């Protein structure tokens, strides 16, 4: 039956790799044989089937990759497209606009659990060694889309797996060169570097994947260590608080003390003025008085003395007049009831 082989080959060349001839032959033969009755129906059916399988639509965000007997021939743009029917050309539609997301080290609520992950692996994905040999929890997401449908379909066996593995490797490479402090505080920088590393790896593998973004979720230290990290924050607060309180105390006391001091000084100034004015007054009075006194010393002295007695004497309480020849009278007086004793000349 070698004729079949040659014939097939010839026809193949003539048709330019098109429809295998035996199909049309078959159609023709069937038409010839079962001419009367049912055959027409079969033919119509076949034609409809052929037409049906030669038309396909590509959605706005897709590209149709057309393969002729497994060989890539062309890409179909969005809209109505035609291909050779009956499995001769096959089309695979790839979404090139849609952004896909992979989560690492956490599962967002409502997201279906990833089949790849066995229970408990989520935490392990996020646990990383930092450059200073501490352990950090680093969850992140990778958003990507297909940029080259041809590479995406044909160059890598399992694109998603490649992306997941590479994401983890890249992220750990970046985190491995950062200290725990940097991992916690410089997420943006880490995400950017990880994105570039990852994109580079994806390009090297000809995966046809474009990394839109690598976004870090909240990085932290592992749960058992977290309280001690919070304690540091708390201690910082406490420190601030203590200093603030002391400052407040200081600010409360000092201005008040300044005022007090000012008052003391003012009072002293008042005292000084008082003293000097009084002295001046007293001096002036004495001087003036003295000037007149000098003119009539004796009489003035007597006058002053008597005037004083005149003023004082009536005001005094008990008065005892003792003859100067009388002795020993004094002890008989009950002077104790008096608070103060008078003057005895």
């Amino acid at each position, binding site marked *: 039956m070698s004729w*079949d082989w040659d014939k*097939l080959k010839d026809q*193949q060349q003539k048709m330019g790799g098109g429809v295998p001839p035996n199909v049309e*032959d*078959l159609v023709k033969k069937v038409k010839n*044989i079962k001419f009367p009755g049912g055959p027409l129906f079969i033919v119509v059916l076949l034609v409809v089937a052929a037409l049906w399988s030669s038309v396909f639509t590509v959605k706005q965000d897709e590209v149709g990759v057309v393969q002729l*007997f*497994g*060989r*890539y021939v062309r890409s179909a743009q969005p809209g109505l497209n035609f291909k050779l029917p009956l499995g001769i050309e096959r089309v695979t539609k790839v979404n090139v606009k849609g952004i896909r997301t992979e989560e690492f080290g956490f599962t967002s609520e409502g997201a279906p659990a990833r089949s790849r992950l066995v229970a408990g692996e989520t935490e392990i994905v996020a646990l990383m*060694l930092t*450059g*200073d*040999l*501490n*352990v950090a929890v680093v969850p992140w997401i990778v958003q990507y889309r297909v940029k080259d449908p041809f590479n995406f379909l044909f*160059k890598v*066996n399992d694109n998603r797996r490649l992306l997941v593995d590479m994401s983890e*490797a890249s992220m750990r490479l970046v985190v*491995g*060169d*950062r200290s725990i402090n*940097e991992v916690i505080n410089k997420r943006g920088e880490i995400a950017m570097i990880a994105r570039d590393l990852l994109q580079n790896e994806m390009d090297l*593998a000809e995966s046809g994947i474009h990394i839109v973004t690598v976004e870090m979720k909240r990085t932290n*230290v592992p749960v*058992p*260590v977290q309280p*001690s990290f919070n*304690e540091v924050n708390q*201690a910082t607060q406490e*420190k601030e608080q203590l*200093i603030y309180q*002391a400052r407040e105390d*200081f600010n409360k*006391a000092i201005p008040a*003390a300044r005022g007090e001091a000012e008052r003391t000084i003012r009072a*002293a100034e008042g*005292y*000084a*003025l008082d003293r*000097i004015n009084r002295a*001046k007054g*007293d*001096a002036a009075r*004495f001087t003036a008085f003295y000037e007149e006194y000098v003119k009539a010393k004796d009489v003035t002295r007597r006058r*002053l*003395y008597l005037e004083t007695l005149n003023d*004082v004497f009536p005001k*005094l*309480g008990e*008065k*005892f007049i*003792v*003859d100067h020849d009388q002795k020993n009278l004094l002890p008989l*007086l009950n*002077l104790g009831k*008096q608070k103060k*004793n*008078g003057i005895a*000349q």
Partner: protein
Amino acid sequence: MKSKGPILIILLLVAGVIAYQAAYIVDETEQVVVTQFGRIVGSPVISPGLKFKVPFIQTANYFPKNLLTWDGDPGQIPTLDKTFIYVDAFARWKIVDPVKFFQTVNNPFNAIGRLNDIIDPAVRDFITSNRLIEVVRNSNRELDISEIGREDEQRERRPLLAVNYGRQFITEGILKQSQPKLAQFGIELVDVKIKRINYVEEVRQSVYDRMIAERRQIAEKFRSEGRGEAQSILGDKERELKLITSEAYRIAQELKGKADAESTRLYAEAFGVDPVFYSFLRTLEIYREALDEKNSLVLSTDSEFLKYFKGLPE
């Protein structure tokens, strides 16, 4: 015409079966080695499309042409500095020589076994002969490990965190060691990467303890710093208060002293003219102020005041 019909149909069916047997499709992601009774015929088919072979006698053996994944078995491996870690490596490989591949390992499933046999030990070798830090870090990038209050300690730690090779170098080493051994299977190892490294459970616990202790120390440092600073501010306050009050006292005393001096000078100047008269005047004044009804007076008749009381002096 009618008798020829069924024969034609049978002929056509036979032709169809033969055509089906002779033709085969190679996808973009595949390559094929054609064998005839198990023996390889011709060169492997690498380009995709519709291909033909001798029907029934020859068989098409398909192999993937695209990039394949190998995932290592994460195992506990001690590093050179005797820290036990889990290392999860993965590699990417392709079948570059399908004929060799077909002859030696036959199918991708077996190939994974070979890859396990070759890459796993290589990973183990490199991890055990390097310090942990060499696997973790990739460069000697300056790390920000400064912690307030722990500067000295951190300075001591810094050299311990320096690497001679780095992760990239180690994964390349693993690749270089494994690659030649895989060439005989028609496999090209594209790269080896370390996906995860982590401390084993016990080590992790002690690392956590260390981290906790470190943080506690820092927290304590902050607290005592706060207390110290507060005390120093309070001390400042005390000092300032004393300064202010004592200065005020000094100024006040100076003012008072000056005033006293001035008044003394004024009094002395005025009263100095006749001290006897001054004391006479002043004494009289005191009599006026000091004596009242609460005082009793005992007067002798020989006093100046009563000298006329007993009788007129001669």
